[in-house]
């Protein structure tokens, strides 16, 4: 998802301040990780004088507002994603977007969805190195790989009885992470 929102320039330093204040970032990071359906997300501030000017034939931008651009890569449907944001991330999201013009707040959810719908713009080309894997699958797979690497070190040198016990422990360790990967449900 891509979204761009205008900010009055005097508000931009406040946004930067809040991003770097530990109180804002850490809980937001933790919640994003716990929601566990976002691979990557970023917020980028483009000041009104920061649009790249690379030739004198290119007209210089004359803008009143700074712009906050948001990019994310997530699993699930758009509605599910915004519902979850609104339900559990509202404080963090408010701290980021309250400086944008006409932001209605992240709760209640319907005006929030309307606002996001208005400030979104479409992606022209998208590449994903693991299209069938959700971020949960990736994390699970990495845990399985680590467990396998550990077990593989000794598995063949144990006695059969020792192997049996070690295998059971190995199973107990990897068992939550064995979900299959595949195509996700269609958007609604």
């Amino acid at each position, binding site marked *: 998802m891509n979204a761009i929102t205008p900010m009055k320039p005097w508000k931009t330093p406040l946004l930067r301040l809040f991003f770097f204040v530990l109180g804002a970032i850490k809980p937001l990071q933790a919640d994003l990780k716990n929601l566990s359906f976002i691979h990557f997300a970023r917020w980028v501030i483009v000041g009104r004088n920061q649009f790249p000017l690379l030739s004198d034939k*290119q007209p210089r931008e004359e803008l009143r507002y700074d712009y906050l651009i948001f990019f994310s890569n997530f699993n699930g449907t758009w509605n599910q994603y915004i519902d979850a944001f609104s339900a559990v991330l509202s404080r963090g999201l408010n701290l980021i977007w309250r400086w944008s013009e006409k932001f209605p707040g992240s709760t209640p959810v319907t005006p929030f969805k309307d606002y996001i719908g208005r400030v979104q713009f479409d992606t022209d080309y998208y590449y994903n190195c693991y299209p069938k894997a959700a971020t949960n699958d990736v994390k699970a797979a990495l845990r399985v790989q680590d467990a*396998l690497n550990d077990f593989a070190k000794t598995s063949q040198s144990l006695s059969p009885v020792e192997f049996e016990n070690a295998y059971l422990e190995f199973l107990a360790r990897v068992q939550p992470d064995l979900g299959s990967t595949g195509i996700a449900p269609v958007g609604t």
Partner: protein
Amino acid sequence: MANESGQVYGLTILSPIIEDERLDIDHTTQLRWYLSTLPRDNTSPFAKVSSTYLARLVVLDDVVFVGKPACEEHLKSRYLIFETNFDGDLDTYLRSMASEVGEFVDAVWKHCVGYPGAGNSDAFVAYMKKCQLQTTFFFADVNDRTVRDTLRALQTQSALTHFIERNQGKPPVEMQKLFGIFLDRLKSAPAPLPGGRADEKSVTEGRPHD
């Protein structure tokens, strides 16, 4: 540095697109057409820049008017946004773009102002850095592995689950032998290709009312 999280780098490039009234089909349209024809699976150019996790190219036509009392304003140029998440450092990534998929890079960025071409990788890197935006807040759910390791892990997970299910309840001596064979097979399995196959799509781009 806010562009990085662990091993992952979040690069955002904003490149002004050339406005040329003399053309029948302007640069923005040509660019969009080109992007719509690009494959998204393991034959994608980004699959060759193999440290790429997720990348996107977006044409920004204009800024958004959110309604009164906000003021309406417009951009004088259109911009190409390149947003990518990869493992490793920036210079290496940019140089590998120029060397691995120079043709693709030229086909995209030739529509942009001041683009020097991928042939001269120093000039290319300098150009990209001139267009780079600093990320204010970057979140990466998994930030401590390379793309190659991640793809291997997914392959392992699938193979292991299959193995476990098929051999449930077998006696320990047999299990141990089978497990050894499994480990060998896994080690010599070909590296999985980044990008998957053409009909697959999992992480959405987040369009409303999809």
